[in-house]
C-alpha cells in the first residue's frame, strides 16, 4: 500500500492550522528525498545497528509455548533496543531528518515516557536541544522515565489540560510546534498526526516487520500464521504489520486497551468503540461523544491510553486486512506476571496486552501454527504500577 496523497482510504489528511502547512509540505519533501538517498539510509541503518543494537532477536518462547499447549510463540524482542522499546527506531529516523533539515531544537510528546526517553537520548547524542511534553498523570505513573529524560538533559513540560495524559501531551506539542515551527522539528512518537507523519513513522518502524519476516523464514521456513502487536497510536503494530501486508495468509491482530472492560466507560478501545472523527490532524477512528468532543480514556498502560489510532490502522480495519481486539487491565497484568515468571522477560505493560492476547489465542491453535508477538518494550518503568499485586508483594 503506497501512500502519496496522505490518505489511507478515507483516513488521514492534514487537519491542522495554516501556520504549519508549509512546514508539513517541506517535511514531506525532505522525507521523500531522504528515504531515496542512499547515504541517509546508510546512516539510519548504521545507528540502528551500532547505537540501538539491531537486529533484535526473534526469540522462541519455549516455556510459554509449552505451557499454552498450542501454537509456537515467538517474541520479537524490541525491548532489547537501546532505551528499551521500539520507539528509538522512529526517533533515529526523524532526528536524522531533523539534522538534515538543519533544525536545532527537537520536541516530542510522550505517554509512557519511552518515546520521550528515546528522543532525549538521540538528541543528547547529536547535541540538540530537546523538550518533552508529558501529561501530569503520566508524569506521576511513569516517574522512572521522567528521571531518565531529565538525566539525559531534556526539559520535561507537565501538561495539565484535559485528563493530563497522552492526548493532551500531543495537543501541547502541536501548539508548541505552531509557535516555533521555524526552528523546531516535532518528533511524533506514533503513527499518528497529520500527513506525512503516519507514513514517515511507519517507514521508520517497518524494520521490525522486515527483520521478523526474514527471521521466521530462517527459523521455521515459512511465514507466521499470526502477528500480534499492541496498539496505542499504532507505531509498533504498523511497523511489524506492514511488511506482511501482501502476505494474505498472515493474520494481523492489533490489541488495544480494554481497561476495565468494553462495557465500562473506562477503556481506550477506539477500534471497538470509536467512530470516524478528527483528532491531532488526522481523520481516523476516535472515541468521542455525540458532539465530537474527545472522551476521556483509560488504560493501565500509559502508552495505550490514547483516544485515537493511526489512520493506516483505521484503514486496515475497514478493509479487513487486520483484526483488532481488546484486552483488559487485569488480563494485561496477568500476562505481565506470566511472561516474567515463565520466560524471565519483564514486558512493558503496553506489550503485555499483546502477550495477553497470545495467551488466549495460542491454546486454540494446533501445534504446527506459528505466532509472533511484538514485544514492543521492557517493563522496568512499570514495576511500580504492579507492586500491589500479590505476586510482587514482599
Amino acid at each position: 500500500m503506497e501512500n502519496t496523497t496522505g490518505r489511507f482510504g478515507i483516513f488521514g489528511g492534514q487537519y491542522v492550522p495554516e501556520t504549519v502547512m508549509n512546514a508539513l509540505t517541506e517535511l514531506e519533501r525532505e522525507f521523500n528525498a531522504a528515504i531515496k538517498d542512499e547515504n541517509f539510509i546508510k546512516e539510519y541503518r548504521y545507528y540502528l545497528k551500532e547505537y540501538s543494537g539491531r537486529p533484535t532477536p526473534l526469540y522462541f518462547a519455549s516455556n510459554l509455548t509449552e505451557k499454552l499447549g498450542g501454537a509456537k510463540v515467538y517474541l520479537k524482542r524490541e525491548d532489547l533496543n537501546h532505551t528499551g522499546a521500539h520507539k528509538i527506531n522512529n526517533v533515529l529516523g526523524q532526528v536524522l531528518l531533523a539534522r538534515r533539515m538543519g533544525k536545532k531544537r527537537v520536541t516530542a510528546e510522550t505517554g509512557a515516557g519511552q518515546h520521550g526517553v528515546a528522543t532525549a537520548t538521540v538528541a543528547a547524542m547529536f547535541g540538540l536541544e530537546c523538550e518533552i511534553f508529558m501529561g501530569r498523570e503520566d508524569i506521576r505513573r511513569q516517574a522512572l522515565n521522567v528521571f531518565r529524560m531529565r538525566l539525559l538533559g531534556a526539559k520535561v513540560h507537565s501538561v495539565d489540560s484535559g485528563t493530563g495524559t497522552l492526548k493532551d501531551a500531543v495537543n501541547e506539542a502541536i501548539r508548541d510546534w505552531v509557535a516555533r515551527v521555524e526552528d523546531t522539528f516535532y518528533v511524533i512518537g506514533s503513527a499518528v498526526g497529520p500527513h506525512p507523519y503516519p507514513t514517515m513513522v511507519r517507514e521508520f518502524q517497518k524494520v521490525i516487520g522486515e527483520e521478523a519476516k526474514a527471521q521466521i523464514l530462517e527459523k521455521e521456513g515459512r511465514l507466521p500464521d499470526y502477528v500480534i502487536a499492541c496498539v496505542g497510536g499504532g507505531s509498533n503494530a504498523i511497523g511489524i504489520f506492514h511488511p506482511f501486508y501482501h502476505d494474505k495468509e498472515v493474520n494481523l491482530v492489533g490489541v488495544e486497551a480494554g481497561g476495565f472492560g468494553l462495557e465500562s466507560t473506562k477503556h481506550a478501545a477506539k477500534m471497538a468503540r470509536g467512530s470516524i472523527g478528527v483528532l491531532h490532524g488526522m481523520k481516523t477512528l476516535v472515541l468521542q461523544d455525540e458532539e465530537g468532543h474527545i472522551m476521556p480514556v483509560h488504560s493501565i498502560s500509559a502508552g495505550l491510553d490514547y483516544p485515537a489510532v493511526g489512520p493506516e490502522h483505521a484503514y486496515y480495519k475497514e478493509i479487513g486486512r487486520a483484526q483488532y481486539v481488546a484486552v483488559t487491565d487485569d488480563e494485561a497484568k496477568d500476562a505481565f506476571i506470566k511472561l516474567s515468571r515463565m520466560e524471565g522477560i519483564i514486558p512493558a505493560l503496553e506489550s503485555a496486552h499483546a502477550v495477553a492476547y497470545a495467551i488466549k489465542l495460542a491454546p486454540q491453535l494446533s501445534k504446527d501454527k506459528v505466532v509472533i508477538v511484538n514485544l514492543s518494550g521492557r517493563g522496568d518503568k512499570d514495576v511500580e504500577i504492579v507492586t500491589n499485586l500479590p505476586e510482587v508483594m514482599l
Partner: protein
Amino acid sequence: MNNRIDMTFERLKKEGKKALIAYITAGDPDIETTAELIFKMIEAGADAVEIGVPYSDPLADGPVIQRASARALRNGTKIKDIMKMVEMIRKNSQIPILYLVYYNSVFIYGVERFMKEAYSAGVDGIIIPDLPLEERGEVFELTKKYGLHLIPLVAPTSHGRIKKIVENAGGFVYCVSSTGVTGERERIETDIKSYLEEVSKYTGLPKAVGFGISSPEMARNIKDYCEGIIIGSAIVSIIEKASTKEEMFEKIDNFIRSIKKVL
C-alpha cells in the same frame, strides 16, 4: 450580495474606519451571560462578533481560551444552545456574526446540517482554524450553498499559498498575526506591513488581523495595514477574572470602547 460581513466592511470603508471583531466563547460563564455580553459589546461599538463554539481539544488556542472552552463544556453547552442564542441575538441586531468552530464539531454535527442551521439562525461567516486549504473542499461548497462566508486564514508562514487560500473566498481574510496559538502577546514580532502587503497582492478582500492583540496601542500599530482587528483572549480574560457580573460588563464595555476609539 448582502451578507452582513460585506456590508459592514463597505460601510466602515466609507466612514474611513476599521472593524473591531470581538471574540467570545459561547457558554462561558454560561449561555445567558454570553448573550448579555454580546449585547454589551455591540453597544460599546464592536462591529462584528465571533462566537467560539467550545471544543474539548482546541488545538489552535492558548490557555485563556482553552480554559473558557472547558468552563463552557462543564456547563453542558451544546451546539443547539448556541444556535438558539444566535437566533435570539439576530432578532435584535443586524451585526455580523461568525462562528469560530473546530472541524470535528462540524464534521460530527454533519457539515450540511451545521451550515443550514447556522444560516437559519442568522450566522454570516464560519472560521475553522484546523481546516486548511487542502481539506476544505466540501465545507467550502456547503458554506457557499447557504450564503455563508468560509473565512480563509493566512499566517506569516503562508508563503506561496496565499493565492490559493484566498481564491473564491468571501468576507475577509483572517490574517494570523504571528506563529503560535491564540493568547495575549506583549508584542508582535512579525513585520506586519510587508506581511499584509503580500496578502493584498492576491486579494481585494478586507484583511483582519488577529491572535495576540490585547491593547489599544497594539491595535493602533496594526490598523493602518488592514481593515479590521480581531480580539479574543483579552476579552475572554476579562470575563474569567471578573468577580461579579457588573464588574464583567463594565470592564468589557470600557475595553471595547478603548479599542474602538483608535480604529
